[in-house]
């Protein structure tokens, strides 16, 4: 269980550009389920995802991961949790340019010090899962949108995370590729992964994949419930 208790996030505190992205949000996310954060742009979905994924700290409030309070942990521990527990698929995919698809997939595991040959084999297997083995050596700039996203998913899975976080995953995909993405996530969920998605795309929040939909607006949770 990932729990957020009364969390707020203020950017540029004390400056004229001060902006409160989240106001006292409380939320429970159950493991092995898919939770979709739904809402318009600027509703705080991405900020909440970043906080749940240990990418930043809330200004106030606390976050618990399996009853362990993680908000006050030092940076090193947060990084360790981020690396071992979460796999991220970013809106822009955020693949590192200039290196191959395979190297991108391997990147999150480099700091673990895993033996290179072993890591390479695992990364190739991850690419194979998405039928990308032939594109392993291709530079990421040469990949199509769908391929790039699948590489981003393979990268998110390389450290065997228990939670997969994806921010607006279908924003840059056409309908066919969006359905393909939902299919991939459904497979991962079936294998036991916890999935947290932020999206304002009906293909995502109306899909069978979504177990719970949390609706957000103006930095607050306006409703949360079991998906229809």
């Amino acid at each position, binding site marked *: 269980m990932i729990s957020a208790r009364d969390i707020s996030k203020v950017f540029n505190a004390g400056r004229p550009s001060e902006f409160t992205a989240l106001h006292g949000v409380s939320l429970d996310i159950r493991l092995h389920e898919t939770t979709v954060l739904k809402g318009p742009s600027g509703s705080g979905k*991405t*900020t909440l*995802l*970043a906080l749940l994924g240990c*990418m*930043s700290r809330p200004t106030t409030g606390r976050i618990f991961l399996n009853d362990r309070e993680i908000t006050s942990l030092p*940076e*090193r521990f947060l*990084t360790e949790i*981020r*690396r*071992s527990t979460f796999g*991220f698929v*970013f*809106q822009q995919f*955020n*693949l*590192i*340019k*200039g*290196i191959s698809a395979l190297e991108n997939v391997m*990147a*999150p595991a*480099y*700091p673990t010090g895993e033996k290179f040959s072993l890591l390479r084999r695992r990364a190739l297997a991850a690419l194979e899962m998405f039928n990308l083995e032939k594109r392993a050596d291709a530079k990421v700039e040469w990949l199509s949108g769908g391929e790039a996203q699948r590489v981003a998913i393979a*990268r998110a899975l390389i*450290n065997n995370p228990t939670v997969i976080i994806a*921010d607006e995953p279908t924003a840059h995909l056409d309908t066919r590729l969006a359905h393909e993405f939902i299919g991939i996530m459904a497979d991962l969920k079936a294998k036991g992964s916890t999935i947290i998605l932020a999206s304002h795309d009906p293909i995502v929040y109306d899909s069978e994949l979504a177990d719970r939909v949390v609706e957000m607006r103006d930095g607050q949770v306006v409703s949360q419930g079991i998906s229809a």
Partner: protein
Amino acid sequence: MRRKGKNGALLLVYTLVIFVLASVLFFTYALKREAALVLKDAPEIIVQRSQTGRFHPIPVAWGESIGKINGVISVRPRLWGYQYDSVFQANYTLSVPAENAPPTGSIDIGSGIAKIRDASPDDIIAFTGHDGFPRSFTIREILSDESQLLTSDLILLSEEDYRDFSGLPADQAIDLALRVRNPREYATIAEKITRLHPDTRPILRSEILRTYDALFGWRSGLLIVIFSAAALAFVIFAWDKATGLSAEERKEIGILKAIGWETSDILMMKFWEGSVVSLTAFLAGIILAYAHVFLTSSPLFAPVLKGWSTLYPAFRLTPFLDFGQISALFFLTVVPYTVTTIVPSWRAAIIDPDSVMR
């Protein structure tokens, strides 16, 4: 290699800077060493005569009285001088060697003279003497290149030819060269010579070395200017690197943090990246500088630095590397550069990883 254009340009500029800095270091050091090696066999004391402060030939007979001073092993009158060649607008150095002097009518010439006069052994070559009449000489040999620095413009000839050519009377010499065994006696002997012949001026070898050092020191002063310019270029280059991190690089650091890299992992990666560029440029620069100075006779510096006449000695310096200097260069370039690549990365790496999500 990623970012081929940027890293390629970086490597090129860096290599160029190291090349110039290392060339200057190699060149000045080798030059001083060369001069010191050549002068190693110079006489311990040279006695010149001066009249009201101006040079004057010294009577050969004075050598006898000076030779009787305790500690003096031998005294040799020396005959030498300079000859201006108006046709080729070059200065030559004339000298009568102590041993193996050419027979009368023959001369040995330095490689520089042979080159500009297009002369080879057995050729006949003419020079205008003190009375305005030319003298012809047969070239016995071209002096070896081993001591090029001081022999390039040299003409060796017999005593008889020298006196005929210069008009110096038989009882006079240009100076006296003394051999003295004990270095601690140099000053005492010099004092005794001055007492014996008040119008003489004894010159110690250490003073000659000092003069050469000052001469090459002055020349290396010019190089210091080049050195400073190159060093300044390096500082600007490193500063630019230190303050500038492209948006792409910043984003990349953000991505790495977001996918689970620690700040220390990123700094380590940047350190290795900087080290690879630094070390490659350093090694390439050093190798190029070595080739430039020791294999191709420093074509970029030579006209300014070598030879004192219009005749530039085309000589090859003895390869000599001072590891102290190389390590100084290493610590003044590679280390600061590597540090400057880390600083901006550190600044970017301490930001929250969620920046890539916004």
